[in-house]
């Protein structure tokens, strides 16, 4: 075999090996979470709040974190949808193709997307101080919605950009206004993509810890108002892993499994959505 063929095979081998390494880390992580989490998971874990303090009490489960996370990520997703849908439709229906505002907004979303979540947390904290809020569900929702806004907007933007030009023309030709075109034609045409964007953003919101550590706080009870602190699954993992008590650590493992399953479900559902709905839309 000539030297260059040896080189070819060596590098091809290296490539396959590194691909396998990267994929096996995923398997290893999922396996670890399952092996640790499954024995810790039982009915009490998902139907009870921790008893005797989340850090020391051995009894109870993580219901406070499950409900808190759903409230928080749900609220943040709703808030982010209402902003990003409007912005994205504006960018695609109203703004001109070579508009500076559109280019600037897209660029700033791209840049925002890379900003670490701890910075969103710190910024959320400055907003809290500014408005005199305490750590609360509301403050957490604001911080997380800022965090997921760029993700959601860019994903929606990509989908709506794919909507064919003719569809706009057809709608205008029928006498529809821009507003009608935007919400009744374009938004409906891009619905599967929009739903996928929403799911991805929800997944990111429910898994983030650094942005809520300052803003939403942590508590043993289920929040009954927007102005109460709320527990979240990521922080339930973080705090309860730090104790020396095995029963409490079990709660962390269970939370990690629950969180990972939620993320898995989101990723599968968004894949199915993309596949299923792209069949029926006008191309």
């Amino acid at each position, binding site marked *: 075999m000539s030297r260059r063929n040896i080189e*070819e095979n060596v590098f091809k081998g290296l*490539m396959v090996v*590194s691909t396998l390494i990267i994929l096996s880390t995923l398997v290893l992580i999922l396996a670890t979470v399952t092996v640790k989490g499954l024995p810790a998971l039982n009915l009490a874990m998902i139907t009870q709040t921790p008893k005797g303090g989340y850090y020391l009490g051995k009894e109870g489960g993580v219901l406070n974190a499950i409900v808190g996370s759903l409230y928080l990520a749900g609220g943040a997703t709703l808030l982010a949808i209402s902003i990003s849908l409007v912005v994205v439709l504006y960018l695609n229906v109203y703004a001109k193709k070579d508009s500076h505002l559109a280019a600037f907004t897209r660029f700033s979303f791209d840049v925002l997307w890379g900003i670490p979540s701890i910075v969103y947390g710190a910024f959320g904290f*400055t907003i809290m101080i*500014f408005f005199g809020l305490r750590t609360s569900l509301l403050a957490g929702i604001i911080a997380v919605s*800022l965090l997921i806004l760029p993700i959601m907007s860019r994903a929606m933007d990509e989908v709506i950009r794919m909507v064919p030009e003719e569809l706009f023309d057809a709608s205008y030709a029928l006498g529809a206004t821009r507003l009608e075109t935007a919400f009744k034609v374009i938004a409906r045409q891009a619905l599967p993509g929009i739903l996928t964007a929403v799911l991805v953003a929800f997944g990111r919101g429910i*898994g983030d810890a650094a942005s809520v550590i300052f803003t939403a706080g942590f508590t043993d009870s289920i929040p009954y108002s927007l102005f109460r602190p709320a527990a979240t699954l*990521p922080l339930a993992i973080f705090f309860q892993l730090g104790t020396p008590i095995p029963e409490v650590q079990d709660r962390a493992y269970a939370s990690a499994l629950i969180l990972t399953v939620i993320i898995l479900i989101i990723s599968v559902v968004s894949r199915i959505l993309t596949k299923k709905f792209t069949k029926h839309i006008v191309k």
Partner: protein
Amino acid sequence: MMLLTIFSGLIVFLMAFGLYQRSRPILAIKPLTELLFSTSWHPLRGEFGFFPFIMGTLWVTGVALAIAVPLCLLTAIYLSQYAHRRVREWTNPLIDLLAGIPSVVYGMWGILIIVPLIKNHIAPFFGIFSTGYSVIAGSIVLAIMIFPIIIHVAVEVFRSVPYEVSEASLALGATKWQTVKHVVIRKAMPGVIAAIVLGLSRAFGETMAVLMVAGNVAKVPSSVFDPAYPLPALIANNYGEMLSVPLYDSALLLASLVLLLVVLFFNIISRVILIRVERSIQ
């Protein structure tokens, strides 16, 4: 609608401004150079030297990149140039999934697997004692976390190299790898750099996973087995006591501002490169 669009475009500035406002009290008393280059971190005595934390961040990020970049580039080349379409259909969702796993879960995995591995096997192998909570533990976890972003961008960039260019090289009798080495990589270089810089800025700001495995000792690390205390971990770890010590909150929000500006800088560079790459293809 337009107002909302303008508002959302201005969030970055709003964040920088808000954090700056909050960090002004400490900037008014201490010169910025002292804050950034002093190694003395004693909040109770009013001494806020960020240097150990900045060095901690640089160590962890640097080692993470050294692990991630070769693996990711080889994988990206494989997926974009060699792999069968069916292989790509299988790997893409898995890599996406890796991107979706929350950072605390990575952190937990790091504590359960990587930290004991380093404590019991890797450090003793080099004849060094380590608790396992170290620069290298943080770097391994971080490297895995930035795999998806580097691979994703690099695959896009490699695939955007026009096929005619590689065909010309193959027609001249070059092997596939020679073509990749001399033609594809050279053509894709700016985009590859952008991919790495995006990974870098992700690693730079990652908080929870690193906080959980890097050890958090406020000292400049001198080896990969030493503990490190990166900047984001510092911010997240002290939210509790920061309001009870004078200037502490101001110092931490200054740290966030520094983080924001550095990441912003990296992001703008890489995005500008990517936009150029995109334009040059069209």
